[in-house]
């Protein structure tokens, strides 16, 4: 592969490119899905190829091929150069790249048990057993389960760096059940919606998920929700559980701090950002309690790697510190425009896609409060957990989330169950109202393997660490 990378770099330079990178990627996926305890889907996929990016007089061209031969590499480079030449026809100013130090070391996800080595029946056991426990609960009429595993091997080289490799392994799983009564449907998921939970780890992570151990509980909760009161409509104190807060971070902080969105290059599809390029070190994003970190070195995150798809090493940076916007998720091209260096967040979802600025592991740092002390300061309020529905405007300001589960908070204690809860807000007001953050015991890392962005559409695997947190004066209601 190193030979092919060299061929690509030499040919691109011969064609007049000032920058070229070569990325080979090989991906394998295995998934098992059950419904009602029966295996309905067993799948293995494999995709392999290379992509090249060239900068010709400051304009980008990208081309790719699944065919790994010297002649195909030369042809692909020539095509990328032709495309870059066309891009120059409509260019305001030439692209420049920052001077980030580039990766020199290979990387591999640490793991104990490779999931592809585990027999299918052992994988299916977890899902069948979880089904059996969910189905035992009176009122449950449908159960689902899934385990998913990805292995990704990447080789990267550019005319500004050496040749580096990395191998990423991801494992995850989920279960869910549905209760139905008089036309009303309630769903409970574990560990969360959006693929359950996924980590850069081996099959040991599936054991740690405790799918079977939690099956009865979620089934009982789903049935109980059918007879719960609807969440009332009011402005109140809202305490968000870790998994829902993870999605809140994803939608209202993660995407909003992607520097390509801030510069408007994602506006036509996924949208832009309310953050302006001049806002760094001055914009108040939230309250003093708000400390958001992008950390691609965090163990087990889906945004954990040795280097990004531009060869920039993994790193840890504050995006928001004590409520002030400090940095962005960025690339070499976007970072240089704000006088900073890339935060190593360029990621592609395959050999046939260009890297885009994506989330890594974007987390809210834990605070000092135990769950009990966080709740104790709430006379009246609502606790919500497990996302059910999500929507936010194209500048990441107006959001509305529904969750599967809610409890009333009364004089500092969790009270009656509430169904069909949803809450809404405006990003800086919402984060500005945060006045309590749970401690490390409430903090959990959530892997989301379904983050969409780009045209052609790309799906990224990202993680968010979140504690429990408290927000004041939030509009809550129930879906009617």
């Amino acid at each position, binding site marked *: 592969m190193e030979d092919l990378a060299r061929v690509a770099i030499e040919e691109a330079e011969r064609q007049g490119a000032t920058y070229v990178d070569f990325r080979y990627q090989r991906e394998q996926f295995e998934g098992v899905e059950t419904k009602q305890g029966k295996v*309905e889907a067993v*799948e293995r996929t494999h995709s392999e190829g290379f992509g090249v990016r060239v900068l010709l007089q400051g304009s980008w061209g990208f081309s790719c091929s699944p065919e790994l031969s010297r002649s195909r590499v030369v042809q692909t480079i020539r095509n990328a150069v032709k495309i870059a030449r066309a891009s120059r026809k409509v260019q305001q100013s030439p692209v420049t790249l920052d001077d980030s130090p580039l990766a020199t070391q290979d990387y591999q996800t640490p793991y104990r048990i490779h999931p592809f080595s585990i*027999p299918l029946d052992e994988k299916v056991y977890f899902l069948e057993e979880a089904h059996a426990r969910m189905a035992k609960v009176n009122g449950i009429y449908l159960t689902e389960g899934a385990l998913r595993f990805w292995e990704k091997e990447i080789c990267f080289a550019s005319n500004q760096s050496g040749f580096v490799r990395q191998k990423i392994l991801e494992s995850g799983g989920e279960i869910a059940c*549905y209760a139905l009564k008089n036309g009303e449907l309630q769903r409970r998921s574990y560990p969360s919606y959006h693929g359950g939970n996924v980590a850069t780890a081996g099959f040991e992570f599936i054991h740690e998920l405790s799918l079977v151990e939690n099956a009865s509980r979620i089934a009982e909760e789903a049935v109980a929700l059918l007879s719960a009161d609807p969440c009332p409509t009011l402005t109140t104190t809202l305490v968000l559980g870790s998994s829902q807060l993870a999605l809140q971070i994803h939608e209202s902080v993660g995407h909003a701090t992607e520097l390509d969105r801030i510069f408007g290059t994602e506006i036509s599809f996924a949208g832009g950002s309310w953050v302006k390029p001049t806002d760094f070190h001055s914009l108040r994003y939230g309250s003093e309690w708000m400390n958001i970190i992008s950390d691609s070195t965090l163990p087990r995150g889906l945004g954990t790697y040795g280097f990004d798809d531009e060869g920039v090493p993994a790193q840890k940076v504050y995006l928001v510190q004590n409520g002030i916007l400090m940095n962005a998720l960025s690339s070499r091209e976007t970072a240089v425009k704000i006088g900073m260096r890339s935060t190593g967040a360029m990621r592609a979802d395959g050999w046939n896609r260009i890297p885009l600025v994506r989330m890594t592991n974007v987390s809210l740092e834990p605070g000092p409060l135990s769950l009990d002390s966080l709740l104790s300061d709430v006379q009246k309020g609502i606790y919500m957990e497990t996302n059910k529905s999500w*929507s*936010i405007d194209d500048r990441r300001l107006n959001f509305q989330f529904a969750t599967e589960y809610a409890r009333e908070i009364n004089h500092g204690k969790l009270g009656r169950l509430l169904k069909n809860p949803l809450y809404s807000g405006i990003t800086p007001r919402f984060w500005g109202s945060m006045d309590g953050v749970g401690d490390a015991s409430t903090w959990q890392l959530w892997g989301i393997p379904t983050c969409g962005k780009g045209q052609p559409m790309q799906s990224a695997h990202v993680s968010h660490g979140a504690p429990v947190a408290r927000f004041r004066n939030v509009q809550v209601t129930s879906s009617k």
Partner: protein
Amino acid sequence: MLERKKIYQTLDTVLNFSTADETAVILISEDLALTRFANSEIHQNVEERNTTVRVQTICGKRMGVASTNDLTPAGLKEVVSKSMDLAHYAPENPDFPGLLPPEPVPAFEPYSPDVESFTPGKRADAVKTFVKIARASRLSCAGYVSASSSTVSYGNSRGACLSACSSLVNAELITFGETSSGYVSRFSHRLQDIHFEEIAQEAVQKTLQGANPRELQPGEYPVILDTPAVVDILTYLAFYGFNARAVQEKRGFLTDRLGEQIFSPLVNIVDDYTREENIGIPFDYEGAPRQKVILIEKGVARNLVYDSITAFREGKKTTGHALPPPNTWGPVPLNMIFLPGDTPKSEMLQSVQKGLWITRFHYTNTVDPRKFILTGMTRDGTFWIENGQITHGVKNLRFTQNIIDAFRNLSMVSREAYGVGEEWYKAFAPAVKIDSFTFTSATLF
């Protein structure tokens, strides 16, 4: 795209490698070229060519699926072996009815060779046209133009052997002023159908018309939903409504409601691949011929779409709407058409005393799939209508709406209609007038 001869050879090779009881193979070969622009310059320009082979093997009632893009004999042998390995160890699925026998499928290929002439240079010229027209009104622009062609082929050990190719040209443009934006999107299987200057002029007009938008209190208003907003709702109807599996699992809003008048009598929706506006192919991913299915007739829920598994459960025949295996979501109508009405858009506008014109929604999502409550934001062209005329732009609003109620309150359907959509879903639709639509909050722009 792969040549047909190579495609058929590959199908044969896979079927010959397999020793399973039954084997099916889906081969998808695609070429894609896409030029993306923002801030009035090209910032992304990509081309891709790839072929994926998906192999489904069946041993008794056990099934495995594996896929690869390695088309060498060794790669194909390996993918068959992986698929059989999975099928060998998978538990039995008593609901699996087996592969379908071959059936005749009409020849139909919405393919135009002119897409191949949409080279990087021509795509840049199209963007240049957008930029020039936007600049003349002091606007910037963003969007993409793309050309793709693909061949979907299906073969199985019962003798089915099918192949159909299609092409797609897409142009999406948003023009931006200081305080407003305007969106226009068109697609066709022919490059010659895409009129870049007209697209730019329409987007510019929307942007200028929406400048200095005013705030509007959330509440219930009459609305005219333009085609892109209607297609957004149709997407959710396709996945959550007419999907037989969603009904069998009681997840969908049409559960126990077939034959019922659920929408206004003005609503007529069909799934029909033969309408060239939708770029459909004549068979599904199980090799079954796609049927034309009447989904909503004069507001009455008439039919669902089926694949072989959902049809088997009800003792019916598939309607040819299977997605690629393994598929736990269920069948989906991929070529939906909301039939146009007879009211010109101008007349619809004149009929509104006070209300809103919505161009497009953003980040729509289900709040409750069973009740069919959706939420989402307006964007890129939201206007206030007063006394039958658009008077000014409005800052964007969030809707949270039971769509069954909304379509029941639908009082006009436009004569004008066109196809619009994103990569994953496209449909053909008119604009509609809805007498009451609920907006639950507003945003800051």
